[in-house]
């Protein structure tokens, strides 16, 4: 043998051994290229998105650290870095010793699985007492270990010093929230990767099983010459691994583009890129190895002779007789119909496969819509409140009101603030108080009052399902202008009120049900508790029981108020509200009203922009009070992902899936007509005219177009309905929505655009994919004709050649 052949022989034992079957059976492997492209793109995009979310949250961590640190406390800016997760305040010398001993003994016997570090700080309170605060760094998982730490070390303090626990204050630092969030994002990512691996294994196994006929002959030959299951599995896995490696660069490019589309920026770091790449390769490798096991096992237990003689009959009916029976003796009346029925398995499989991609596209569009609805319901708000401080001086209160006005004006500076709201309400029963109203002011419901007489001796109704709040007229004006409340009457009278006779603004709804029918000018009486106590054995089962007991056993003084304005259609989830002047509020509650102000962020705002503005907002808070600014939404990666990325993520994947539909068509139809080459050539040889052959292809194209159009539309609609029905059904059982909100309900709308696009793409893909093989056939025939018509070279020319 010649040397070059030797080299070739050796070469075949290496890389070529795997590459050659793929190269030479490329059509059989096209579907695997596509499937792996999809798997890798999905995994890598998810990974890159995960790292983007993580880096966003990490950015918020540093932001969170400094924002909280620059909170103005007593007019001073202090920088604090939170390195501990939990803080326990108000430990006494004794309880601190017990805690320290417990912790030290756990450390010494190696049983501290909950925390990694604990230290103490001495605090001198306002009256000069010395207390201690303990700072704890917890181990992962933070939430569980925090609970364990409290149970193991803090709860036991009650045993040594009874009542200790009630006097302690346990709080969590931003580090806890942030670390918890990062851990939860990582856990979500791991879950997503496991799910992706499972789905890839499922998809590749199905693909392998569907395409197994293509491999039977070759694997049968291998088995005839000694291949066992292990050998076949190695061959199959290596082939898929090579496909995976070949398609990887394309997947990486698409993933980076998809990620850029999702996060609207090219912000992939080198570390994130390589970790994502490693995870993608890992998931691909696991998937292809596991996916090959079942189909190869099935092959390996077959007799080789069965595999070798097995023709690829996957497209044909199992018994020709049955198709004749199907349509009766007169069938076939057209050759096109005969072939359609004969190859019905192929048509059904391909149409369903293509329709499946449309279903996934439509589902993705629905999920995108759902997540957009979710994102719209994420109510992010900043809460501003005076921390741990009461106002008992009138001048200070006026200063406070000026401050509130200034805070309300922050809306004009930060355009992501939709509106501000305030709440300083206190429930009347907690003040041992109630309201007496005229009988005429009662609405139809009788369950909210008890009969009594008013201070003037007239028959009246007493009710206690009220909250007392106090706002000045300008705050009410602001809330009315913003549509937070709807108010009728002259509420400016609130500011001109006197201690002798007051004006109030009232609302009429209890739990969104109209309970009272008050008019401007109506007189109401608010009770102030002056003495008496309800016996401890008095049976109280409801608010009305409590009210009856109040009236029976307690004594009150009543102040008369005139209703100057009524809040209509207020969104009162709880009690109705009475807005009284600030001085009266102080008389009733003991101090001036301090509101929690809520700066509600507009839906759809860029949360990163919102969070990064916090430092400036804190600086804008008026001096003189212990203002504390917190956000009502946690640093939630889930919220970020949902509000900013999930809809785009679903849309992008939907489009990728839809684009795969024509590819499926083209692959399936090309292979199909390749198999029918002998049949077509025989027809031509038997004298079938060109028009007849063309008609055969056109007929097939029309069949698939119509079927694809109908099925894609029908399946897409069903998928969409099913998705909403499932979300409704799951929501009824308390399952979380996409954002984690419980009992979420989505507005259903048939996605006509998505359905039309998917059905059109599928139908067009089917038509083009069926016409293409005919074009190829025509091209080949024309080419051959030209070749035959070319002049035959002379003998010496041939020899030279």
């Amino acid at each position, binding site marked *: 043998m010649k040397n070059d052949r030797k080299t070739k022989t050796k070469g*075949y*034992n290496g890389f070529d051994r795997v590459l050659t079957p793929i190269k030479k059976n490329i059509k059989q492997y096209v579907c695997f290229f596509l499937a792996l492209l999809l798997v890798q793109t999905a995994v890598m995009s998810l990974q890159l998105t995960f790292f983007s979310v993580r880096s966003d949250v990490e950015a918020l961590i540093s932001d969170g650290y400094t924002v909280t640190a620059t909170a103005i406390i007593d007019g001073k800016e202090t920088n604090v870095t939170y390195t501990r997760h939990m803080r326990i305040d108000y430990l006494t010398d004794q309880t601190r010793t017990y805690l320290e001993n417990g912790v030290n003994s756990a450390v010494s016997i190696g049983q501290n699985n909950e925390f990694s570090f604990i230290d103490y700080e001495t605090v001198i309170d306002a009256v000069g007492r010395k207390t201690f605060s303990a700072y704890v760094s917890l181990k992962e998982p933070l939430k569980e270990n925090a609970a364990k730490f409290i149970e193991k070390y803090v709860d036991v303090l009650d045993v040594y010093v009874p009542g200790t626990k009630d006097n302690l204050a346990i709080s969590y630092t931003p580090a806890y929230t942030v670390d918890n969030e990062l851990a939860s994002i990582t856990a979500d990512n791991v879950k997503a990767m496991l799910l992706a691996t499972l789905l890839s294994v499922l998809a590749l196994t199905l693909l392998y099983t569907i395409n197994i006929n293509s491999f039977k002959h070759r694997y*049968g030959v*291998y088995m005839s*010459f000694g291949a066992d*299951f292990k050998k076949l599995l190695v061959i199959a896995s290596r082939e898929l691994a090579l496909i995976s490696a070949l398609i990887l660069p394309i997947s990486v490019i698409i993933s980076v583009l998809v990620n850029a589309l999702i996060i609207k920026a090219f912000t992939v770091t080198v570390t994130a890129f390589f970790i994502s790449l490693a995870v993608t390769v890992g998931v691909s490798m696991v998937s292809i190895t596991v996916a090959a096991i079942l189909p190869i096992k099935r092959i390996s237990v077959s007799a*080789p002779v069965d595999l070798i003689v097995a023709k690829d009959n996957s497209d044909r009916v199992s018994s020709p007789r049955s198709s004749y029976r199907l349509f009766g003796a007169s069938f076939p009346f057209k050759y096109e119909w005969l072939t359609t029925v004969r190859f019905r398995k192929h048509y059904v499989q391909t149409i369903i496969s293509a329709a499946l991609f449309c279903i996934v596209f439509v589902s993705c569009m629905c999920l995108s819509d759902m997540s957009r609805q979710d994102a719209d319901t994420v109510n992010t708000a900043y809460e501003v409140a005076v921390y741990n401080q009461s106002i008992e001086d009138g001048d200070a209160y006026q200063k406070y009101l000026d401050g509130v006005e200034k805070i309300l004006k922050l809306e004009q500076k930060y355009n992501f603030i939709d509106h501000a709201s305030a709440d300083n309400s206190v429930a009347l029963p907690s003040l041992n108080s109630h309201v007496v109203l005229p009988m005429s002011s009662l609405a139809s419901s009788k369950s909210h009052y008890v009969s009594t007489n008013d201070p003037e001796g007239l028959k009246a109704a007493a009710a206690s399902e009220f909250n007392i709040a106090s706002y000045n007229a300008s705050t009410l004006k602001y809330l009315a202008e913003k549509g937070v409340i709807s108010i009728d009457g002259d509420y400016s009278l609130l500011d001109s009120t006197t201690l002798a006779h007051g004006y109030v603004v009232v609302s009429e709804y209890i739990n969104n049900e109209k309970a009272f029918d008050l008019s401007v000018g109506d007189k109401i009486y608010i009770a102030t508790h002056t003495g008496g106590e309800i016996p401890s054995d008095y049976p109280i089962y409801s608010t009305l029981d409590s009210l009856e007991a109040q009236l029976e056993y307690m004594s009150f003084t009543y102040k008369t108020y005139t209703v100057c304005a009524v809040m209509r259609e207020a969104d009162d989830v709880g009690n109705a509200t009475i807005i009284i002047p600030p001085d009266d509020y102080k008389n009733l509650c003991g101090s001036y009203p301090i509101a929690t102000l809520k700066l509600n962020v507009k839906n759809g705002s860029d949360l990163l922009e919102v969070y990064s503005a916090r430092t400036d907002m804190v600086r804008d808070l008026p001096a003189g009070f212990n203002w504390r600014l917190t956000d009502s939404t946690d640093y939630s990666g889930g919220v970020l992902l949902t509000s900013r990325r999930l809809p785009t993520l679903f849309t992008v994947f939907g489009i990728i899936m839809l684009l795969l539909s024509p590819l499926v068509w083209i692959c399936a139809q090309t292979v199909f007509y390749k198999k029918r080459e002998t049949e077509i050539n025989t027809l031509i040889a038997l004298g079938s005219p060109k028009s007849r052959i063309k008609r055969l292809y056109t007929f097939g194209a029309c069949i698939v177009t119509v079927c694809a159009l109908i099925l894609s539309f029908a399946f897409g609609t069903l998928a969409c309905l099913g998705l909403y029905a499932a979300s409704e059904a799951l929501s009824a059982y308390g399952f979380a929505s996409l954002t984690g909100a419980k009992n979420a309900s989505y507005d259903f709308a048939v996605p006509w655009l998505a359905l039309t696009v998917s059905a059109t793409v599928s139908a067009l893909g089917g038509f083009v994919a069926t016409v293409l093989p005919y074009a190829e056939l025509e091209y080949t025939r024309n080419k051959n004709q030209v070749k035959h018509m070319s002049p035959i070279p002379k003998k010496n020319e041939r020899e030279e050649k």
Partner: protein
Amino acid sequence: MSNYDFNSIEQTPLLKATDVIKQYRQYDDVVTAVNRATFNIFDGEFVVIIGASGSGKSTLLNLCAGLDRVNSGTITIKGQEITAMSADQLGRFRGNFLGTVFQNHNLIPQFTALENILVPTLMCNKPDVSYEETIKKLVSVLDLGDRLHHLPSELSGGQQQRVAIARALINRPLVVFADEPTGNLDKDNAEDVLELLLETKEVMNQTLIMVTHDLSIAERADRVFLMDDGYLKPWRHSDTLMYPAKKH
């Protein structure tokens, strides 16, 4: 190599079939392709099985070559009961001890001649065997030197069959099963292929079991069996050269 200990293998008979039955189901009917076949084949023999088309001779050959499973009965090769082996054991056994030449070649159409010949070496690695030497010898004997890098579709029927023979012999099997290796060939090519098989049988000291229609080949065999509608019986030179009429 595998789990098989050459020292423990008995010398004779090389192949022993006892009451072998193989049935197929065709729609509602059950066809008995091989009916209680019992025979012995000894080391170094050239055995031919003849019979009419559809009489079950290829099925019997496939059963003996471990390419198909019996419904009942046992087949033992070199003391190892192949009918009791698992699929994987049987696969390894085939790779190590058996070689098969199919009637329709069964070359992998996408592989070149050389790649097809090398397939068994990839399926079953024998570290003590020099494949390069064997290939050289086979290529020279089979006269495939200038066709090694051609696809099966670019080879003639005779060349394809020679590639199939080379593939069957590359692992130096103890027993070669050939299913009508000359069935699709013209007279000259058929003669060449037969000569090749007999020559390599002698050179490699193999046992050759062949299914054929060609009575001239049967005349050159050590022993001949006749397959008649699933039943196997010995056939003698003195018997009629005509096949018994196939029962319908």
